[in-house]
């Protein structure tokens, strides 16, 4: 058996804080920051990174294509 874990890298300067990724994440990984980026937008970040499975739902719906998704298999004991 192997366990799949994911992570996302968000280009925070490109993010406009639309929040569509946040509500599209089936695992509740993402949230909007309290800080703002250079354009004045709150941006998406991994608030709960351990829950990410790398399903890419967030990146798929992102209108600004600012999310990259990574996935890795880890062997389980």
């Amino acid at each position, binding site marked *: 058996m192997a*366990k799949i*874990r*994911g*992570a996302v*890298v968000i*280009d925070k300067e*490109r993010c*406009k*804080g*639309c*929040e*569509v990724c*946040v*509500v*599209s994440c089936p695992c509740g990984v993402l949230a909007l920051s309290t800080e703002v980026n250079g354009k004045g*937008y709150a941006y998406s970040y991994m608030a709960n990174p351990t829950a*990410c499975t*790398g399903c*890419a*739902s*967030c*990146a*798929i*719906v*992102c*209108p*600004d*294509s*600012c*999310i*990259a*998704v*990574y*996935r*890795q298999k*880890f062997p389980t004991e």
Partner: protein
Amino acid sequence: MAQKQEEVQIVPENRVYGRPALLTDRVMHYCPGCSHGTIHKLIAEVIDEMGMQDRTIGVSPVGCGVFAYNYIDIDWAEAAHGRACAVATAMKRLCPDKLIFTYQGDGDLSAIGTGETIHTCNRGESIAVIYVNNAIYGMTGGQMAPTTLVGMKTATSPNGRDVKLHGYPFKIAEMIACLEGVRYVTRQSVGTPAGVRRAKKALRKAFENSMEGKGLSFVEFVSTCNSGWKMTPVAANQWMEEHMFPFYPLGDIKNE
């Protein structure tokens, strides 16, 4: 210790999804959450996956999508308001080996450009028509579109669309589906990950039809305009599901 081992390495071999190669670096001018950005991404992905960058010409409209040529790294022509289908007709006739598509909003395609749209469909030109229907004029500041729903408030229907005053919302997809030259008509949306996946398949089919000379393919995207609708992007997606989808139902309308 075990926790640390399970941290995903941010290295190319672990990358499963990222920015499409055919999107330029330019930050899109669209409002936060705008469907245009997602649709642009799908077009960029499909052209890249089909290996068609060097044989594709897009035709951009007048409206919010006018600057599509700044974002997708292919050759483009910017058409006069409503005339994209006529522009694309000549391109496909003169360059039949090219993938030719138009990218048009509801004002461009189904108001000022209705004539060109319908006749291009009727001639069965082997092009793909991408139609972004958000029921409002975005770029000019939220005026009523032909597709504005009954009762919907816009800058030019401040008390809501009244059929006595403005007539009925226009379902051009159903209308063109009955034309012989039209091969494929589908209505999609990009508000959810599942919707985006389905829409991408539809787009690919439309582009393949174009290259196989199978006649005209028409992909409508029921979309949001959260600025024009005066909602947050998330609320706009929800409003679209509740109000737009019942009137503009998703799915294939014609698939021959």
